[in-house]
């Protein structure tokens, strides 16, 4: 009897450790997946330049086209669906289970400043970054897709893509 009880205790303990680990692993995986995908998304977004301004030697982003590129990139690379580019709903077989939000998207280009390095500050998300040229900064957030019950963890990542001047 005592052996059975010890065994049950051991199994319960390991089940607890395992569920804890799977949850933490979901947090970690969400973080790196979001970071990687966001880096590719801002890269694609940064390719949308206004050709008229480029002809005048200025790097100015075509913001609508950039947002479309970012949306297409995130939809594909994270297996999501978005209508306007700010709220992303995971598809059925996506790793993510909760909506993802592009909570901030900022364009620093030659319409904003012509002096670099430029210090970008975002007190809302506690971000400060020196950029050396026109840049796109995107911040994304979601609730971690935890497999087992546990306190919700908010995953938030930022990515910057800059042209060096």
């Amino acid at each position, binding site marked *: 009897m005592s*052996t059975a009880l010890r*065994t049950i205790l*051991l*199994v319960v303990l*390991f*089940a607890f*450790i*395992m569920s804890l*680990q*799977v949850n933490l*692993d979901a947090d*970690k*995986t969400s973080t*790196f*997946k979001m970071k*990687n995908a966001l*880096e*590719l998304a801002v*890269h*694609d977004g940064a*390719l949308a330049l206004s050709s008229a301004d480029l002809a005048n030697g200025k790097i100015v982003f075509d913001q609508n086209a950039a947002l479309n*590129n970012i949306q297409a*990139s995130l939809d*594909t*690379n994270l297996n999501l669906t978005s209508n306007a580019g700010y709220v992303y709903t995971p598809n059925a077989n996506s790793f993510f289970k909760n909506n993802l939000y592009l909570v901030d998207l900022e364009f620093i280009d030659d319409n904003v400043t012509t002096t670099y390095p430029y210090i970008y500050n975002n007190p809302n998300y506690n971000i400060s970054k020196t950029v050396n040229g026109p840049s796109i900064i995107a911040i994304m957030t979601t609730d971690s897709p935890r497999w087992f019950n546990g306190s919700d963890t908010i995953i938030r990542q930022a990515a910057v893509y800059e042209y060096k001047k």
Partner: protein
Amino acid sequence: MSKALAEWMTLIIVINIMFAPILTYIDSLQREAVEVVLTEGAKEASIQGQFTPQIIQGMKDALSNQYHFDASKINIQATTTLTLRNQYLQASIEAPRGFIFILDIFHLNQPLTFKESTKIMSEYIN
């Protein structure tokens, strides 16, 4: 007899459970490695406008040398034609996956490979 049988059965379950957390962790790290190598390869390919044989070989080498995947079992499919700026390059990596339970007593039908894919715009200007 019944006691010995019960102890053996318990031992099998305990061994499985004991190693599951670390094996899950390794599985997760290997998946992350595949995705990181794919993303870095895609960034490099974007500059060159295609996944050149060197980039593909570099991704294979990184997975086999740094992350100890079996090179002969890594399958990389990627856009190898020169692609101009604002058009998409695609790539996917399929790599062999380890196991989570030492003894397959739960009969989990897990995929035997990781398959990660990505899409990135080309930066290449002719």
